């Protein structure tokens, strides 16, 4: 597609339930990133996929968070046993992963509300 697509755009879930957030990057972009923005906060790095390399998971806040990227394209971020502090906007971005092209393209995000 023309841009990065994220679904769903909004998700309300009960505390303790699992959620899956989906990201479709721009075709041909080898790098994919997940960030989240909590209310009033900046963008917090979660995880980074680059081609076939092992993902950089250094930003995942707990072992309840996991992500995968199938076939080098679509990515799914899974949050197990959601907690209220997981409420945030989850943003996915993709890029060509060249140092001359740091200009990530972000999706519009998934607003997750844990009640």
């Amino acid at each position: 597609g023309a841009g990065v697509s994220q679904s769903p755009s909004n998700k309300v879930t009960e505390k303790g339930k699992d959620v899956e957030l989906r990201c479709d990057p721009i075709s041909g972009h080898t790098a994919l990133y997940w960030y989240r923005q909590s209310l009033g906060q900046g963008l917090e790095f979660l995880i980074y996929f680059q081609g076939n390399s092992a993902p950089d998971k250094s930003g995942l806040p707990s072992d309840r968070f996991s992500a995968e990227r199938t076939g080098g394209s679509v990515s799914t971020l899974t949050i197990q046993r959601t907690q209220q502090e997981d409420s945030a906007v989850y943003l996915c971005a993709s890029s060509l992963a060249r140092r001359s092209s740091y200009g990530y393209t972000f999706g519009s995000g998934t607003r997750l509300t844990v009640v």
Partner: protein
Amino acid sequence: DQQVKQNSPSLSVQEGRISILNCDYTNSMFDYFLWYKKYPAEGPTFLISISSIKDKNEDGRFTVFLNKSAKHLSLHIVPSQPGDSAVYFCAAAAAGNKLTFGGGTRVLVKP
């Protein structure tokens, strides 16, 4: 440990005047810096960038200045327009593709 800081959470400026947004960083390994703009309910969009080998980069109404010795960069918007009202994020990278973002500055341009 916040490696990229934007100490001003908000800024209000009159239309036509200059907006100056500031950003400080602590990691001396950062060698590429970017500014992103974010409207409500949208993802951030890339605005302008600067490599550490430069101290200034200009693109239309937007200019980014980098002071490596002070580990400080700034974004100047002149003249400011009402459509510039948004949240601006400073970001930095070190020898890789992962960006570290600041907390953002909300800019309001008053007509």
